[in-house]
């Protein structure tokens, strides 16, 4: 079973190796497999303009420290994929923003942990940990730019995505902007779909309410 570790500026020094593994995995997946042309291979790693110090990472680690899955959350007060690159995906309804709104980006599962035709447990752990994090931190709304065909899958997890604009064709992909509210029900539904019955989020060296930006909204 994969534990999902929260990594942000406050505890990043504990996870330098895991963060580096994750940048290498992102290169393999987004540049190697998916061939996103906008991305740059930086010495075997994929790092973009949104890997700033306020970014929050959730990394699925095996007991020996191997990264097998993960995602990145961005504060909506900073530049994000949606606000800086694809604002037209939210042209109709506008982007939700504020200290209690995060943007979901770079959700991945390493190839060896994907399960043909089935939901990958390593990915489910990350999604459940993300919802746990949102509930603990008081995140009201999540938003995302993703491939449009993901929307029925997200709905199948029990999330209720709201479309923010018409789908946009880009570089051979059809992208859609959507938002949803993380709730206890969403977490329960997602756990049920994956057959996960325990909390997945691990905090080392950082208490709830101590990540930048989100903490600012809650406590400042």
């Amino acid at each position: 079973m994969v534990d999902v570790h929260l990594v942000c500026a406050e505890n990043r020094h504990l996870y330098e190796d895991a963060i580096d593994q994750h940048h290498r995995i992102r290169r393999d997946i987004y540049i190697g497999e998916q061939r996103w042309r906008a991305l740059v291979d930086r010495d075997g790693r994929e790092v973009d303009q949104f890997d700033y110090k306020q970014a929050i990472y959730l990394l699925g680690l095996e007991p020996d420290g191997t990264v097998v899955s993960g995602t990145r959350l961005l504060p909506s007060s900073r530049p994000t994929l949606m606000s800086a690159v694809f604002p037209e995906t939210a042209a109709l309804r506008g982007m939700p923003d504020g200290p209690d709104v995060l943007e979901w980006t770079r959700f991945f599962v390493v190839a060896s942990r994907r399960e043909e035709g089935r939901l990958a447990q390593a990915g489910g752990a990350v999604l459940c940990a993300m919802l746990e994090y949102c509930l603990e931190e008081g995140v009201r709304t999540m938003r995302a730019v993703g491939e449009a065909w993901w929307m029925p899958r997200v709905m199948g997890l029990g999330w209720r995505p709201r479309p923010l604009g018409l789908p946009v064709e880009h570089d051979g992909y059809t992208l859609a902007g959507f938002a949803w509210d993380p709730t206890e029900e969403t977490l329960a539904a997602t756990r049920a779909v994956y057959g996960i019955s325990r909390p997945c989020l691990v905090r080392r060296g950082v208490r709830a309410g101590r990540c930048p930006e989100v903490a600012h909204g809650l406590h400042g």
Partner: protein
Amino acid sequence: MTIDADFAQVRTAFDLMDTLDRFQTGDELRDALLGFLRGFGVTHFTITQLPQPRERLGPHMILSHWPQAWLAHYDRNRYYRHDPVGRHCFATLDPFLWAHAPIDVGAQPLAARVMGEAAEHGLAEGICIPIHDVAGFQAVFSAAGERLELSPNARRAVHLLAYYAHGAALRLARRRRSGPRAALSPRERDVLTWLAAGQTLGQVGATLGISDATATTHLRRAREKLGTSNATHTVVEALRQHEIRL
């Protein structure tokens, strides 16, 4: 189509997506979708799971307004395995017009005939939105009529709407069938899985190392839980509810 009219249709589509969750019956949902889609020349639509090539399509439909005579003719002749539109759903993630589904005469000798006869039943032009659900099962939203008029923005709006329609139709179908029902036992799932693979009940018993009578009992219990009428119906229903996979 003026820009303003185009924009008004997109707005209407988004408003409709917001409300689909509230419909209580399949009829309400069907009427609301048709009411909107008629503006683009759509007279019929179906939201359906995509079965294996040798199967009938009708039992896999989730919510439809589809010509009865055409569906009966289509299933009687096993046209699904010759249908280029159904086939193309497995080749793309993006919406496509029926006319753009490639015809491969080698793989589907009757493809042109299927499309021609569909046109005779009022389904001359159509649009498909393939849907991949969370368990990797495949479904499609397909809408058709004599002549479709879809601007690029209308197509994009229908694309999104299809996902919401599929979600709402699944929710209603589950509620209609079930109420809270007892889950299938692992053994009941085993029996249905082997039946789905084409084994007879006798073979299933041998495979699982249980008697014919026990296999029959597992099937009967599964049938009672799913509210189905016979073995085939039970297998289809178990597949559709994602209790088993092929």
